[in-house]
């Protein structure tokens, strides 16, 4: 039996095609995932991401704990209200999960982890937290709504009182702020059932689409009212199908498909998320250092196919350095052709071909992200 978010009935009322995703009954699309993709690239789209797991970490030793737990350095988070993308590694340097860390206060950090990995993440985090005296509190009573697209910030802010609007529009990238529920309940465009809107709203300028926008964490009891207010403000719903094509165009990894516990972040194209800062003994550090010293055996590359067809997970990839496989592959609605991430042996890959149902098709190796803020990146469209 799949779990449902509090927005489940709204998805169904909007005609969503529902699928199981990480044990959750979630909307795949509301008719056309390509239309929803373009909506986010060109205007503003609304995603229910309440299946994601919000975990609050509290205690005097939270920062030292996170220095050990994740491979990116939480010391980059200098001011409260800043967020960091990071991988949580095991001792072998494999990726247990990827997550976002929000610095709320010196004794309170919030992390958001994947739904599909929740059951292994929580025991791991709890075990790691114990020596630091850090409490680990899951927040299942919080919902999460992502508003993404070039007009997303303005449309969301239009629901807020002047002060709150200024606060969220003043956020820099990866910045977050909490605003009182009254900021939306009392505003002219906001939630009409003012008395019933509790809040607060946690608003972060983050996302998984390659567009500007916010991810909003809201009490479950307020999620439907917020969703409907955003629809009235002209933001249309978008499903997991569009979310997947948007994030892959943006070159963002999907846990379980692009990396897992058998892959190090250095092999997953995530070396930029690993901080080898002096003297910080994070989980997996010695394994990663050994891998670097010996030579990282595999690499993740971006592929574009100019011929018809769609690159898909598991297809063999033939390169001069050996055979690998497609990790995430899809049709890119923004580019009108197929794109993929592939893991192949290290070295000069030369000319690359993908085996698509028995037929070898030439593909081009390109730097990714493929698309950023509505624009194809240099070299992607040859």
């Amino acid at each position, binding site marked *: 039996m799949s779990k449902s978010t509090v927005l489940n009935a709204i998805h169904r009322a909007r005609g969503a*095609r529902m699928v199981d995703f990480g044990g959750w009954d979630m909307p*795949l*699309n509301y008719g*056309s*995932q*390509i239309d929803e993709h373009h909506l986010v690239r060109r205007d503003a789209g609304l995603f229910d991401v309440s299946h994601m797991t919000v975990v609050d970490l509290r205690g005097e030793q939270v920062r030292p704990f996170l220095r050990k737990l994740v491979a990116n350095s939480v010391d980059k988070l200098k001011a409260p209200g800043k967020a960091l993308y990071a991988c949580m590694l095991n001792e072998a340097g494999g990726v247990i999960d990827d997550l976002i860390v929000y610095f709320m206060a010196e004794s309170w950090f919030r992390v958001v982890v994947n739904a599909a990995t929740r059951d292994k993440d929580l025991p791991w985090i709890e075990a790691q937290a114990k020596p630091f005296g850090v409490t680990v509190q899951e927040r299942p009573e919080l919902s999460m709504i992502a508003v993404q697209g070039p007009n997303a910030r303005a449309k969301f802010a239009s629901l807020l009182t002047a002060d709150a609007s200024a606060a969220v529009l003043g956020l820099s990238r990866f910045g977050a702020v909490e605003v009182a529920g009254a900021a939306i309940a009392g505003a002219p465009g906001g939630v009409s059932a003012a008395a019933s809107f509790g809040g607060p709203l946690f608003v972060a300028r983050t996302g998984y689409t390659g567009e500007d926008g916010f991810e909003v964490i809201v009490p479950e009891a307020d999620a439907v009212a917020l969703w409907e207010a955003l629809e009235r403000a002209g933001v249309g719903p978008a499903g997991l*199908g569009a979310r997947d*094509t948007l994030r892959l165009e943006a070159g963002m990894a999907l846990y379980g498909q692009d990396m897992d516990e058998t892959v190090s972040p250095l092999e997953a194209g995530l070396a930029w998320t690993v901080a080898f800062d002096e003297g910080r003994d994070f989980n997996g550090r010695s394994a990663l250092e050994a891998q670097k010293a010996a030579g990282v055996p595999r690499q993740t590359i971006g592929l574009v196919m100019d011929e*018809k*067809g*769609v690159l*898909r997970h598991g297809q063999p990839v033939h390169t001069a350095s050996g055979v690998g496989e497609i990790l995430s592959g*899809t*049709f890119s*609605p923004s580019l009108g052709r197929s794109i993929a991430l592939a893991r192949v042996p290290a070295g000069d890959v030369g000319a690359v071909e993908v085996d698509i*149902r028995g037929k070898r098709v030439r593909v081009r190796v390109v730097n990714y992200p493929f698309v950023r803020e509505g624009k194809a990146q240099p070299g992607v469209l040859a």
Partner: protein
Amino acid sequence: MSTVPADLKFMKSHEWVRADGGNRYTVGISDHAQAALGDLVYVELPSEGDEVSQGAGCAVVESVKAASDVYAPLSGKVVAVNAALADAPETINAEPYGKGWMFVIEAADPAQLDGLLAADAYAATLDG
């Protein structure tokens, strides 16, 4: 929910067949199939003149989500293909039983039609 046109015959694998007279049969995929696949982005059709055999793959429809074989519901010769689908595969999403038709077979053995599902029997396979 989708309605299944009563004048068509179906395969369990969601292809439909319409008798056009003169031993010609038009083939497409059902509304249920297009909805399950989602937005189509490529269609690979047989060529005119190809011989196809019942139950064998002779076309491919590819959506953002998945690639799926289309099986020949009848044996025979392909005498027409819907070339417009190459530039507008989404026509199948919009009108699976109309402008989204895929190809026409001149049947070698029209009696094979009797082995296909009537509309109500096909509709019954979609429940539950």
